[in-house]
């Protein structure tokens, strides 16, 4: 694949970064990402991943867009109330970047069946465990994030661990790492911070650059503008990630 002149213009701010370059941009354009959850964090991430040029974006979120979503999420609009959140989010993604293949998946099972080691999953909706377990077993990496109220948490689960199955569930929950609809609806600003941290992680995984969030949990507390990092260690002998 050679970048066209139009693509070179569109992605020029990426291409001139030493960590991206033409080769990195092509990796982004050949990448596949599954977004499970298109509430505040998931939909903010989705807009930016489409803008960045991620080749194939699969959206899974059958919940209908409600009034509450319009205060949490920037990808939905008033005239799409009642549509599924995945279908609603697909519209601005296609408008921002028609080059991206945007697929609305209605079945979680079918979405999960697509996954292999080339995929990255951005998980922000409950229930986490089944999709997470299947993704890791099929070799995919899972960026998990939870935005609630004015803050939230984000980390990376990957084969080799640690992962959701071998970490202390209570600890993760206390830190805010659980699905968006299981807690207080986030402000769009807080969901943006969490969702964009997660999207940054997805882009780095695709590029194979930087230091990932494996074993690191980042929390954001919007009332205090505080970002904290917590080290994560699995229990060992994990049947899911093998750590």
């Amino acid at each position, binding site marked *: 694949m050679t970048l066209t002149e*139009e693509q070179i*213009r*569109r*992605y*020029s*701010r*990426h*291409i*001139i*970064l030493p*960590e*991206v370059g033409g080769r990195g941009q092509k990796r982004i354009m050949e990448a596949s990402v599954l977004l499970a959850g298109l509430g505040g964090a998931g939909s*903010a991430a989705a807009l*930016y991943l489409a*803008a*960045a*040029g991620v080749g194939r974006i699969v959206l899974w979120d059958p919940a209908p867009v409600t009034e509450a979503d*319009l*205060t*949490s*999420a*920037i990808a939905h*609009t*008033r005239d799409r109330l009642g549509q599924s959140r995945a279908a609603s989010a697909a519209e*601005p993604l296609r*408008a*921002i970047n*028609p080059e991206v293949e945007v697929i609305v998946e209605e079945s979680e099972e079918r979405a999960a069946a697509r996954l292999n080691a080339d995929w990255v999953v951005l998980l922000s909706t409950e229930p986490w465990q089944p999709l997470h377990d299947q993704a890791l077993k099929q070799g995919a990496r899972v960026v998990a994030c939870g935005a*609630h*109220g*004015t803050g939230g948490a984000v980390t990376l689960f990957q084969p080799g661990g640690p992962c959701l199955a071998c970490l202390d569930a209570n600890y993760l929950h206390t830190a805010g790492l659980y699905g968006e609809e299981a807690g*207080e*609806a*986030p*402000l*769009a*600003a*807080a*969901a*943006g*911070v969490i*969702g*964009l*941290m997660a*999207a*940054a992680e997805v*882009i*780095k995984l695709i590029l194979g650059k*930087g*230091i990932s*969030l494996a074993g*690191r949990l*980042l929390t954001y507390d*919007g*009332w*205090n*503008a*505080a*970002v904290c*990092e917590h080290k994560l260690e699995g229990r060992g002998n994990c049947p899911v990630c093998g750590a």
Partner: protein
Amino acid sequence: MHAHFTQEEQERLARSSVLLVGAGGLGSPVAYQLAAAGVGRIGLCDMDRVDVSNLQRQVLHTTFDAGRLKVESAADKLRALNPNVVVETHPVAITRENAMDLISGYDLVMAGADNFATRYLVNDACVMLGKPVVHGAVFRWDGQISVFDPKSGGPCYRCLYPSPPPPGAVPSCAVAGVIGVLPGVVGSMMAMEALKLLSGRGSTLTNRLLLCSTLTMDFTEVQVQRNPDCPVCGDHPTVTELIDYEAFCGGVGQ
């Protein structure tokens, strides 16, 4: 602490107004998120038109908006999200001639300009008018966020950066590049700071500069202080009216 603003705080947001200097990389998340939160009036100041090279990160604009004024493209998106928000468009460059008029119509300024002359201009005008500024900047994979609010005892932009870098010493986004997700992270944090300033709740980044690297996912906080000798917000200011910022920064578009 609970997320939701009390009814009184929410009403305060609805009565408040914010001016965005720049409706591009940082302005995109800021505008969307302030509209979603119910800020009553949002002013957008940007003279640029949407270019294809913006679309990699400026999610307010779509491929079909290429060539349109950014403020008009942005206003459409904000009204679709929240029709109750009053969106005011200022398709002009902010200059020493219009800055005081523009800024005095708003409670707060979001400064995400892409050049130093505009940063100093906005800073000085806001100090003179007593308006708080939410500051954000992005460079390659790195960003910074702070709140400049000398009225509450914090520093201004000039306290941190008394003089601009030599022309050409800091390359622009077009020359240095920027990872697309970065203005999303920085702009979202800026929006949260604005909501705290406007609602009167929470602890803002006044006296603190938050630095972030998305490549390593490191976030560092630096304490910053007001400089009593600052020429603009210090005890004995020497800059008491707006100056020629192009000359101060050593030329246009450097």
